[in-house]
């Protein structure tokens, strides 16, 4: 990548940012303003990514996290302000949501275990999230949390193996890989249980 490419990208992102800000100024509807604000923020992150190049990640991640948390806070304020309530009515159903989850979740979890580590945890978690979202769940949150806690303890123990018994490094790697797989999967699977029974799932 040469400098010219960065300059062109930067110019495009800045033009998009100006359009976004102009739209926020003109928009009068509150909900649309929240959406446009989020759009402008993502464009701002693009600008930061293009300016700071190799150190960008250090500034993009907090920017993203701060943006999402503020978006959630503002959305909560909007819901309270407008007095919105969850609509009553039958839940959204598709036939594929009854047939697909079992086999898809099985494939994803198996592949995640093969990958292991953080990536494997994420892949397996997608399978579990999909299963919970489609099939529902009998709540056993304590079990999931307990498994997550033990996995975290094993992960820390693996670091102690690295530090004090470096000759057993392979054992440490396997411990850490398996534990982080369990932990990420357990955490993310809670996401799938969030909207069950809500209006849109």
């Amino acid at each position, binding site marked *: 990548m040469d400098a010219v490419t960065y300059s062109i990208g930067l110019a495009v992102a800045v033009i998009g940012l100006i359009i976004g800000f102009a739209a926020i100024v003109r928009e009068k509807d509150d909900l649309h303003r*929240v959406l446009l604000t989020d759009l402008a*923020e993502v464009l701002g992150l693009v600008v*930061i990514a293009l300016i700071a190049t190799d*150190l960008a990640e250090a500034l993009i991640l907090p920017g993203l996290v*701060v943006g999402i948390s*503020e978006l959630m*806070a*503002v959305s909560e304020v909007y819901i309270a302000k407008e007095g919105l309530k969850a609509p009553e009515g039958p839940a959204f159903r598709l036939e594929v949501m009854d047939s697909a989850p079992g086999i898809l979740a099985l494939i994803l979890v198996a592949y995640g275990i093969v990958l292991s580590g953080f990536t494997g945890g994420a892949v397996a978690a997608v399978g579990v999230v999909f299963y919970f979202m489609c099939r529902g769940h009998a709540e056993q949150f304590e079990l999931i949390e307990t498994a997550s806690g033990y996995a975290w303890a094993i992960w820390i123990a693996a670091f102690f193996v690295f530090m004090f018994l470096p000759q057993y490094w392979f054992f440490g790697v396997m411990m850490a890989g398996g534990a982080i797989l369990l932990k990420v999967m357990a955490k993310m699977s809670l996401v799938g249980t969030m909207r069950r029974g809500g209006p849109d799932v």
Partner: protein
Amino acid sequence: MFNLPNPQIGGPELFVLEFGDIVAYFSPYTTVLFAFALLFTIFVIVSRPERQVDIAFGGDAYYTKEVEPGLLRFQRFMAIACGLATLGAMVTGDVFNFTLFASLVGITNIGIVAAYRNRHVLNAAFQYGIVAMLATIPLFGGAAIVVASTGTLSMWELFTTAVTVPLIAKAFLVLGVMGEGMAPFYIAKAEITRAQGAPFILMVHVSSLLLFLRVMEIVISM
């Protein structure tokens, strides 16, 4: 071992706290700000919320408003978190950490303001939230320009005369802090002072004032 490169603004450093390459410091200036923030955080922890009195005109009747325990607990938590974030922003020696603390102050300020169930206050909180969201762009953008042009975010390097920070980065930093910390000052103040919860609302003002004084010190020193 450490000497503040530019002692004219904040005075010589009194105490240095080293976390790896992130070195927090106390100069007379930041010590005063830190003590002020600490005092108000303690106030928030120990004080009880005020109870407003409504007087019915044309008679002797008056009634006091009750503060629900849930609201009180949430607001107190947010105010204490805001105080801790302000304490961090006062002593940090790293522009990146400063931006993080400033955005934390912004989020907790939204929390303090949004706890009320009053339509006017919620409207003001919503406007403030939008300004705070937009302010993250100049805040992190300013830090990104500082990194891109100087290659470091440590104030110990940036305060030396060898390193020049572009004016646009300084302007962005100030703009971001104004949006994150100062926004309630000019958007929500009039609406919020109608609401109850005196000691916690104070934290919004204290944090915005201290953040602004601190960003001024950083920008002038750079």
